[in-house]
């Protein structure tokens, strides 16, 4: 199923966010270059983003990202080399040997240290790579999608990232990556259906939130035999098997509806009949949210077991079938939030 939301260039909301990330990336450049041209480069970056936002299309976004990455890396190396000619390196080396007698060599060491710090900051705080091994979000996120997760997007209240970086709070319809509450060694990806205070139930596979039937464009249904628990949640508590699921039924199901407690989320997979989600194991604590999918950088058609753990067989498979089994059409796809339409009240 094509994902219509993927064909969008950066929106105005995203632009300021991208600009702030870009201004952080500028710290990779040598100091004098940054001071002299950093402002102009930010300005150019913003102009380019605005133009892209006016001319949508995944291709332009793809090109833009690739160009930018190549430009950032290539020009940093070039400026670094330019600012540190061989002569300069030799002088730095001599200065290191004779440290104490002369001024300490600041330039070289601090500049490279700064680049490494920016890199580490980017990989630990901003983004993290994940692979999706199961099909619970099939339709929007596929088995074998390797994606970067934006860890700063939903920074927890009170965390440092929240003050430093752009963020917005989790909203209904967002795709979120989170630690599986029953076993935090696992990471899951689902869509947010309920925020704290929302009343959720399902009637014949359809979600009813706060008494209103949801029209969900992102779901995918299978012609599987009906299952009272799965399709009519929360009507059959005895089928819930996990401790957290039982806790939900004991304390948070009132008058046939699950009521999302404070600092928690109710999440469902888009592939409704083939998804183990909040219906089974309860709510996701807000601080278990890792982030939101940023971009699919590689999508490879492989079985679940191979994706969960790399094996020699899988490595050989990738080596042999890289070009045929890579889903090129999904490369650099951006999984997007999608809002459900609320239709008339059923109460």
């Amino acid at each position: 199923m094509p994902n219509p939301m993927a064909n969008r260039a950066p929106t105005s909301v995203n632009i300021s966010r991208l600009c702030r990330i870009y201004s952080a990336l500028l710290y990779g450049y040598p100091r004098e270059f940054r001071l002299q041209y950093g402002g102009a480069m930010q300005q150019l970056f913003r102009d380019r983003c605005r133009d892209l936002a006016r001319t949508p299309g995944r291709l332009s976004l793809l090109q833009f990202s690739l160009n930018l990455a190549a430009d950032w890396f290539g020009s940093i190396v070039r400026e670094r080399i330019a600012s540190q000619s061989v002569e300069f390196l030799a002088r730095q080396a001599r200065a290191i040997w004779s440290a104490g007698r002369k001024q300490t060599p600041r330039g070289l060491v601090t500049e490279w240290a700064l680049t490494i710090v920016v890199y580490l900051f980017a990989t630990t705080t901003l983004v993290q790579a994940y692979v999706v091994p199961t099909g619970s979000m099939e339709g929007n996120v596929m088995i074998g999608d390797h994606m970067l997760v934006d860890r700063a997007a939903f920074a927890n209240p009170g965390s440092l990232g929240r003050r430093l970086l752009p963020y917005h709070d989790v909203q209904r319809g967002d795709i979120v990556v989170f630690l599986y509450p029953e076993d935090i060694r696992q990471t899951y990806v689902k869509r947010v259906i309920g925020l704290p205070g929302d009343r959720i139930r399902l009637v014949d596979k359809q979600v009813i939130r706060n008494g209103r039937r949801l029209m969900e464009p992102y779901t995918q249904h299978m012609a599987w035999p009906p299952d009272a628990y799965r399709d009519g949640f929360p009507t059959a508590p005895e089928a819930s098997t996990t401790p957290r699921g039982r806790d939900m039924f004991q304390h948070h199901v009132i008058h046939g509806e699950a009521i999302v407690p404070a600092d928690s989320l109710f999440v469902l997979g888009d592939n409704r009949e083939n998804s183990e989600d909040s219906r089974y194991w309860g709510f996701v604590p807000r601080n278990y949210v890792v982030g939101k999918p940023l971009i699919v950088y590689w999508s490879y058609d492989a079985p679940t077991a191979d994706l969960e753990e790399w094996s020699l067989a899988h490595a050989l498979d990738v080596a042999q079938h890289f070009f045929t089994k890579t889903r090129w059409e999904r490369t650099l796809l951006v999984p997007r939030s999608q809002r459900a339409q609320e239709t008339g009240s059923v109460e």
Partner: protein
Amino acid sequence: MPKPPSPRELLPLTPPVFHILLALADEECHGYGIMQDVARQTDGALQLGPGTLYGCLKRMLAAGLVEESDERPDPALDDERRRYYRMTALGRHVVRAEAQRLAGAVTAAISKRLLDRGKPSLAGGRA
């Protein structure tokens, strides 16, 4: 200040530098304008990123091919961080020399039947 190099020493120009000079041939321009013009000239094949563009401009300023302009021809759309550049006499000289050099190469290619006269053919590869 070192003596500016002679135009001959600067040839051949790298593609980004050549296209930046072409973009500045008509009028002075700010960074984003240069980037758009270069994309137009090359049918989108050469998209200069911020780092490449300003890296080139820095070196071109040092070589005296361009200079920074204080005038703001477009005050309505302006932002104070925008920098405008214009081509120097040396820059004009150099871009003309480079264009002549390329024209010589094109003539040679035509004589070898690699190009149709007047309209470059892309069928055999990238022109």
